[in-house]
């Protein structure tokens, strides 16, 4: 079980709270606490803490809430801020292996996580093509692109990144 703290932004109309809590229990969430404060006009911030079995149950809850038009402004799992994950793919073209590929991977792993890699080397002294898939928090997308661009400049690679 993992403890999840969320902040939901709800419309200030009767019945909204019940509507928001329902998907949590439907998907096996065990609600620990609900506190709310009236803030911006027409919107109420509701802090909901609950325990849920795993990430996939949490994803189901998020989807169900979003379907009802309820926006989740913050999510913390076991006290750590959670961001939506994103996958980014790109090809590096150049002498990728001979320019310390370990270093390239380590630096990328500092920002995201390389989850897939495929190398094509036509001949030892020719340029190779390396495709990488990197899992990353959505908020770090720009940082990763800047880092990869920097590495490419340094090591003289051509970067072919996804749109």
């Amino acid at each position: 079980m993992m403890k999840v703290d969320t902040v939901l932004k709800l419309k200030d109309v009767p019945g909204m709270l019940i509507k928001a809590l329902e998907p949590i229990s439907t998907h096996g969430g065990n609600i620990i606490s609900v506190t709310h404060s009236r803030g911006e006009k027409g919107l109420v911030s509701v802090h909901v803490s609950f325990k849920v079995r795993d990430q996939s149950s949490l994803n189901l809850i998020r989807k169900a809430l979003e379907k009802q038009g309820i926006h989740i402004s913050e999510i913390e799992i076991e006290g750590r801020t959670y961001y939506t994950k994103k996958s980014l793919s790109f090809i590096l073209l150049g002498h990728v292996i001979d320019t310390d590929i370990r270093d390239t991977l380590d630096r990328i792993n500092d920002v995201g996580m390389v989850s897939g890699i495929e190398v094509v080397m036509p001949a030892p002294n020719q340029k190779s093509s390396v495709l990488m898939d990197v899992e990353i928090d959505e908020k770090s997308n720009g940082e990763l692109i800047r880092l990869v661009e920097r590495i490419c400049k340094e090591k003289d690679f051509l970067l072919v990144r996804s749109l």
Partner: protein
Amino acid sequence: MKTVKLIVVGFGTIGKGTLEVLRMKHRDLLEKQGFDVRVAAVCEIDGSIVNDKGINIDSVLKAASSGKLKEHPDWKNAKSLEAIEVVDADIVLELTPGDIKTGEPGISHIKKALECGKHVVTSNKAPIALRFQELTGLAKKKGLKLRYEATVGGAIPIINLYRDNLEVNEVRSIYGILNGTSNYILTKMFEEDVSLQTALKEAQELGIAERDPSYDIDGTDTAVKLVILANSIMGKRISYKDINVRGIQEITTESLELAKKHGYVIKLVGDVNGMEVSPRLIPVNHPLNVSGTLNAIMLDMDIAGTLTLVGHGAGKIQTASSVLADVIDILKDMKEL
């Protein structure tokens, strides 16, 4: 019925294509628009064919095809700038190929035409990319129209479509496959597993690539079109030097193979928001994945959402479609006067 007179400046591929289409559609323009569209002058580098009553298009095209323009009875030694000034006409079609560094002779032609009270339609990218503010400003000051649909995406009506139908939208991004030659080469490499050199040679044999294809391959042509889109559609004020440009020279068959294996193609993409031209991975089923010499432009807007246009980015007749669209747009305004 009104008579409207054109001056065609530049008699290369697009100039000839435009005359062919004018000949083909003369009756249409008369019946649908109510205008008898005549060509008062055709200007080449060393002289012009001028006839105030309207030149005989058949005879000019015939003379051009046999390389005997100078033997045409209406041939005069008047150079383009002089012809623009002295020949009585309503619209100047500036269809010369532009020098990307200087924008000439296009810039001088356009300025001269506007100063002489003539509307301008151009297919010439360089002047519009280099001097957008100045030239559109001059047209506005003179109460004239300067139209440039044919400068980006050949027959794809991107600029007019936005102006006439989408202006309520805020455009969040524009991505484009804007160069047919490089797209042909990448498609060939991807589909037939041939090297860039082989694909390029074939493109040259087919007349798709020029003998010196560097502007197409190194991304310059795409970057110039990107500048026009950024300034005319997104209201930016950028110039060519603001764009980060990487071409397709370094793309290998192995990298395309690798992309294919993972469900991607590699395309030369102009990214207006990122102010970047570079080879990018595009999912195989993505709307921008167009093959051969086709062009594609994808807009992302706050109200209309995404919209992708696909069409012929070059070609004698196809580009003339955009030139004539601009001419008709001006005719419609003249009708209201």
